Every structure is written in structure tokens, then in C-alpha cells.
């Protein structure tokens, strides 16, 4: 559109606002988002590099920091696959069959999203601590859940529980069962039907769910903080390690570890946008959260 044609249009088009209102709103929005989102993210990297690149690298190459990174990766490597298996099973049962109580089941699956992270941790302490219900029995068997990696894995599974399922359920519902029925009637068995027919249709949706699930699993703070017991080098994940360093006034150290998580967040956002842009038709209708 050339500028000469643009001006009279904005004056006469009654379904849009005058040019100055539009630009004012755009400026307000962009300014607000710059201050609220970009500035804090930018400050993480600037604070991390405040004392130079050497100090930054040294802060990450620290024994406790490395063990926190290892633990975070370990926890996500267990929690994410388990929730993928659950998400696929739940989506298969809910999307491909008609039965009573389905909407109640979907509501229950979404439940962990509406529970405060601290309360998520609390319920596991109530169940598994030495003063809890199952705690004494498990303790007699030599199994420790609270203040151990087991507890961290369990609460991480809890807080990331709905991500994969809530992405796959609407997607598989949209796709219906015609293709699967055709496969079965042609003699394929259940597993063949799933891996050759259903799976190729939901690959990108599954990836989308995994992406969000993983970001939350690696970044969870409140729930993990309640069950971890903060034992350095043993039960400290990256977010917990950030807190310890920050409270010890080791700001470069805290922001150095934080910068790794911020990079993870930026990569997650970039991949998520890429999936939404490239495969919009292969994601569930309400893919955007």
C-alpha cells in the first residue's frame, strides 16, 4: 500500500481508529511489554556478565552448580517421558472412545494446574514424610521420599501432569476415528494402528506438549523447594541453587545459573512459535494458552 492511498483510507474507514490512536496504543503496548518482559530477561544476562566472561564461566563450572544442572536434567528425563506415556494413554481412551464420565476425567486431569506449587509440594510431604501417612511404612522399608530425589521427581510429575494430555486430547478428538477403524478393518493390530496411523497425525502436537512440559519440569521452584530439603550437591535443582546463591549475595553465581534457565525459556519460546507458525493445522485448535 502506498502512503498516499493510506491517509484518506484511515480518515474514512469507520471501522478502525484514527492514526494517532492506533500509534499511541501500539506505543503503549510495546513500551509496557519492553518494561515488563524484555528488561527483566535482559537484566539476567547483564547481571550474569557483570564481572566479565571469566567470572561467568567460573560460576557455571562450580561443583555445586554442575550437580544442580545434572539433577535438573535427571528429574526432567524421568518426569517428562512418564507424562508422555500417561498423556498418550489418556488421549487414546478419551479421544477415541465414547463413555460416561469423560468430562469429569478431563477436569480431573487439569486439576494440577489450579493447585498452588507450594500446596503441590505440601500434599507430598503430608503423604510421605516421616510424620505422614505412608512415610513410616516406607521408612521401615528403607525408602525415603521427602528430602530426596524421589520426592523431587514425584512433585515434578505432579506439576507437569496435564501438559501433554491436554495438548493431545483435543487434537485426537478433532481427528476422529475413521482412519483407525479403517486400519483395524484391514487387519492391523492395536499397536500397528497407533504407530502407523495415529502417531504420524499427532507428532507435532506431542512435541508441542513435551516442549511446555519440559520447560516447566526444569524450572519448577515452589513445589520442589518444599520437598527437597535443600541439601547442596544432593537435592538442589537449578532453581533451588539460584535461591541459595542469591541469598548468599553471590549475585554473579545466581544470575549465571539463572541465565542458563533463561536461555532454555527463550529456546522453548522460539520452538513453540515455530511449531505454531509452521504446523498450525497439526496442533489442537486451542493450542495457544
Amino acid at each position: 500500500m502506498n502512503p498516499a492511498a493510506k491517509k484518506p483510507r484511515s480518515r474514512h474507514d469507520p471501522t478502525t481508529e484514527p492514526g494517532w490512536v492506533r500509534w499511541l496504543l501500539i506505543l503503549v503496548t510495546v513500551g509496557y511489554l519492553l518494561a515488563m518482559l524484555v528488561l527483566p530477561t535482559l537484566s539476567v544476562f547483564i547481571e550474569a556478565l557483570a564481572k566479565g566472561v571469566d567470572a561467568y564461566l567460573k560460576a557455571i563450572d562450580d561443583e555445586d552448580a554442575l550437580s544442580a544442572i545434572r539433577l535438573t536434567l535427571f528429574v526432567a528425563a524421568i518426569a517428562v517421558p512418564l507424562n508422555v506415556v500417561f498423556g498418550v494413554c489418556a488421549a487414546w481412551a478419551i479421544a477415541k472412545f465414547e463413555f460416561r464420565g469423560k468430562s469429569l476425567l478431563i477436569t480431573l486431569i487439569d486439576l494440577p494446574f489450579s493447585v498452588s506449587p507450594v500446596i503441590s509440594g505440601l500434599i507430598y510431604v503430608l503423604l510421605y514424610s516421616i510424620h505422614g501417612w505412608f512415610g513410616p511404612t516406607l521408612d521401615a522399608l528403607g525408602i525415603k521420599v521427602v528430602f530426596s530425589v524421589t520426592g523431587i521427581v514425584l512433585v515434578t510429575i505432579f506439576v507437569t501432569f496435564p501438559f501433554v494430555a491436554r495438548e493431545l486430547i483435543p487434537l485426537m478428538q478433532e481427528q476422529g476415528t475413521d482412519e483407525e477403524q479403517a486400519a483395524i478393518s484391514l487387519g492391523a493390530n492395536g499397536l500397528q494402528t497407533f504407530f502407523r496411523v495415529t502417531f504420524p497425525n499427532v507428532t507435532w502436537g506431542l512435541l508441542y506438549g513435551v516442549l511446555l512440559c519440559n520447560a516447566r519440569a526444569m524450572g519448577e521452584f515452589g513445589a520442589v523447594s518444599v520437598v527437597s530439603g535443600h541439601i547442596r550437591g544432593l537435592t538442589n535443582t537449578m532453581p533451588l541453587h539460584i535461591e541459595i546463591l542469591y541469598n548468599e549475595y553471590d549475585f554473579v553465581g545466581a544470575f549465571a545459573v539463572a541465565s542458563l534457565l533463561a536461555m532454555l525459556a527463550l529456546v522453548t519460546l522460539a520452538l513453540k512459535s515455530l511449531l505454531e507458525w509452521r504446523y498450525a493445522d497439526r496442533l489442537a485448535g486451542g493450542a495457544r494458552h
Partner: protein
Amino acid sequence: MKPAGVLFGLRWRQPSVLPGFGLTLGFTIFYLSVIVLIPLATLLLRPAELGWSGFWTTVTAPRVLAALRLSFGTALVGALINGLFGLVTAWVLVRYRFPARPLVDALIDLPFALPTAVAGIALTTLYAPNGWIGQLLAPLGIKVAFTPLGVALALTFIGLPFVVRTVQPVLQDLEREVEEAAASLGAGRLRTFRHIILPAIAPALVTGFALAFARAVGEYGSVIFIAGNMPMKSEIAPLLIVIKLEQYDYAGAAAIAVVMLAVSFVMLLVLNLLQRWSRRHEEARV
């Protein structure tokens, strides 16, 4: 042999040629029970140890009441700010074209992706009295970090995407013809917005507001750094749960948690009813 899907003589599922229903539903229910339902059930049973009067004294202690008031009050402020700016942001993203718009759109979800502890230390460092923004505000006598204002700021940050993401699709699907009709009948832009557009996006706006509010009430990670955590002043309810746990007062911690969940549940229920009522009201008017 009994036909599949019949229980106590009632048909509870429609027959299907696809296999694996029993296995996948069974595993879903088992996993859901072990991870979510059983742990949540203990939360409701645990405060019963205190007895009714013990429960009441715990949750009406001045420190607990102050924390609950702060949590719900600042969550409300955060959700209101997000309602306003979320509406403007969704409007700008859907209706206007400007450079870097896709980038701005992608950026909205940052608070979902950025771990809360990272957001917490970043905001605290920015708004501390010697921080980049804090030192600009200090001469004006405005203190953000370590005050309830800081709590509201953190809660605004983490709730930012909700309203944008609920309003955006509705605004996108809105038919422009109605606006053209309003304009041809002589309505100005503001009037069209108030009488045509706002009623159409109001349910989505309320939903986004409720989601942002619910998320903010339970938020912990981003708040504890910036709050200063002074009892009676800037101590949020989730932190009080953590403190009670550290003192091994499990029943007390569970009691506060139950109150938080109950209040949020009632508020969401009221919002839901309000929304349903307004929709019926709207239909009756048409």
C-alpha cells in the same frame, strides 16, 4: 458372555472396533489416582486432626489473616492490571500491523516459559532501591522491592499472558460486518467498542482475569525474592505454609492450604455464575 461396556445393566460406553480401551483408561485412572487424587485427598483429611476449633484458631490467627489478605489483595491488583493491559495488547496484536509484530506476539508467553525463580531475582534486582528502575523511583518516594507493591508487580508479571491469550482468538473471529453496520448507523468508534465489541469479548476477558487471578494467588517463586517477607506486612500465604512446614506444623500448613483452595474455588465459582448470568441476560435482550 456379557457385552462390553455394560455395568450393572447400564450402558456406560458405546461399543467400538478399536482396541486398547480397557488398558489405556485403566492406566490413566491408576496414574491419575496415584499422582493427583490420593495426594490431594490427604490435604482435605489432614486438617481434621486439629478439630473444628483448632482449625478455626489456626486460620484466624492475625498473621495468617494478614498473609491471606495480602495474597488475595495483591493477586486482585495484578489481575486487574493484566485485564486492562491484556485487553489493549490483544487489541493491538489482532487489529494493527506494525514492525516486529510476530516477535511481540511470541514474547507474550515469556512468563509461562521463564522459571519463576529467575523472574523473581531479575525483578528484585531491577526494582531494589539501587536497581535500574528502583533508583529512578526512589527520589519520588516510591519503594517497590520489599513492599506489597513489589508483590503486586511480581504477580502482574506471572499473570501477563492469560488475558491476552483468552481475548486474542475471540477478537480474531469477531465479524467486522457488525462494526460496519454500527458505523453506518452513525456510531463513533468508542460507542461501537462499548456496545458491540466489549460485550462480545467480555466472557473471554473475565475468563482470562480469573485464570490470572487464580495463578497469582498460589504463586511463590517469583514473589518471595521481591516481597521482603516481613510477617504481617509482606508475607504471602504460600510462604506461611512453607514456614509452618519447617516448624513441622503439618496440620496447620494443611489448614491454610485448604482455606486458600476454598477461597479461590468460591471466587471462581462466583465468576462462573456471573458469566453465565450475563450471557443469559444478553440473550434475553436480543
